[in-house]
């Protein structure tokens, strides 16, 4: 009993110190950002890396999610005589929830893990130390570009993903419920509020930050052994996804009171 308690206590403390490290890294990143110390070339490279590497899997994920959702919704909506709202219901769910959250999870798995792996390898092979000896702050040179890439690219991917999801939804609504394009898209135009889309984008910005900070932190704090890089990579994905779930709940409650 006592050992369970002490294990819980130790776990709690470890969690606290982890949050502390994350906050410190985040603060240092923000300080560099506000000082305007941004390496343009690496930032653009990171943005295209995050975007290009994640886009295919985001597209596939969102396309099928949109189709499945539309299938379920069409079934129910037709039963309730609300068939005219199918398009809007798909779009609303995409904008509020699936667009940002699902995209973020996919990006965490794809780009967050590669951030941790890349920085972890640099740590193990002393490249981070080499940066420091060349008067370059690793946070400024490595974290800031990835932070910006996460913050900008995840919302963009979420937007594209949401759109793809809506299109996927239409394909199913069309084939199974005989919905016309005009009816499907008009119901979206008539009912979906701009704010809903904006709120989804705000969520995605936060998720992008979470992915980048956790991925970079795992990389920078990798211990100096090559098997540690693999562990850091796995942890980056798991922790990022957990934090995305928690942040999603909090943000949903704040943005949709």
């Amino acid at each position, binding site marked *: 009993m006592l050992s369970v308690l002490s294990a819980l206590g130790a776990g709690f403390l470890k969690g606290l110190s982890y949050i502390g490290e994350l906050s410190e890294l985040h603060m240092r990143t923000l300080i560099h950002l506000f000082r305007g110390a941004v390496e343009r070339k690496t930032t653009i490279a990171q943005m295209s890396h995050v975007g290009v590497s994640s886009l295919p899997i985001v597209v596939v994920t969102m396309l099928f999610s949109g189709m499945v959702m539309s299938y379920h919704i069409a079934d129910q909506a037709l039963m309730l005589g609300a068939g005219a709202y199918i398009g809007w219901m798909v779009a609303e769910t995409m904008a509020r929830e699936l667009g940002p959250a699902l995209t973020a999870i996919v990006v965490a798995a794809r780009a967050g893990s590669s951030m941790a792996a*890349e920085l972890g390898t640099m740590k193990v*092979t002393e*490249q981070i130390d*080499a940066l*420091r*000896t*060349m*008067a*370059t*702050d690793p946070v400024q040179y490595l974290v800031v570009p990835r932070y910006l890439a996460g913050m900008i690219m995840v919302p963009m991917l979420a937007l594209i993903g949401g759109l793809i999801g809506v299109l996927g939804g239409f394909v199913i609504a069309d084939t199974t419920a005989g919905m016309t394009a005009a009816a499907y898209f008009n119901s979206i135009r008539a009912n979906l509020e701009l704010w809903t889309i904006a709120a989804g984008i705000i969520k995605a910005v936060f998720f992008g930050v979470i992915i980048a900070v956790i991925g970079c932190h795992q990389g920078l704090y990798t211990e100096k052994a090559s098997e540690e890089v693999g562990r850091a990579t796995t942890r980056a994905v798991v922790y990022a996804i957990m934090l995305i779930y928690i942040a999603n709940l909090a943000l949903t409650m704040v943005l949709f009171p």
Partner: protein
Amino acid sequence: MPETENVLTEQAQPEEIPDDDTLAVREIPRRDPVDRTGEPLLSIRDVRREIDGEIILTDINFDVWPGEIFGIMGMSGSGKTTLLRLLIALDRPDEGSVIFHNEDIARLDEDDLNRVRKSMGMCFQYSALFDSMTVGDNVSFSVRNDRSMSDDEKREKVADLLAMVEMAGTEHRMPAELSGGMRKRVSIARALMDDPELVFYDEPSSGLDPVMSCNISGLIRKVSADTGATAVIVSHDVDNMLGIADRILMLHDRTTALIGTPDEMRSSDIPIIRRFVHGLASDQMTGRCSPR
């Protein structure tokens, strides 16, 4: 390019003996004697370093004067790399101070350290090249945001440095395509790019063939002669070290066994130094290497 270099390339020009330049062991350039009357550039005072509660270094004291080539020798695992990391403030000592230009760099924060590190260069034991960048980008990394140099000047300097370490024309290759010794030489070029006042070399000649390792020693000496840069070299290549260093510190048993000139090293009767300098195996290991 200084004169010695021109003489060498001219000699190498006849087509019949194309390998002349690589086969010839370079003459070690002459330098002015080091002036030890002024302020030391680097002063180490009572430094102690523990890792995970284990004492790695203790009671380390020495000074390095401007323009000096200072060697650090010691057995594998004696703490040479650990000491070098303290000198460039990658790690901080648990006790004591590392004074560079009258400033205790062990107590500076990272922002101030970045200012200090602009006048230092470091060549890592395992090269530590950035493997996402080409050789050229690696070498020019420290001046990438330097607006006082044009891109052409940067390219020219990179080419000169690469030629100096006999890696001319490799700008566009990736580090992964290079051998260990080639990476090492690129990392030396990288350390010299921003004209450092103080250069640290961690095992600059390990993994190199004897000719190249001798060339690197000559290069270090040449850089010091040309630019007046101070060098701290870690190496267990005793012959080269005795050949180029002005003074050498021998690390043993977590602390300094002796600091002295190469001649003082050769004539020392401290057992570990005798073993090292005269190439004798330690008692625990079997066999006995031929004495030098």
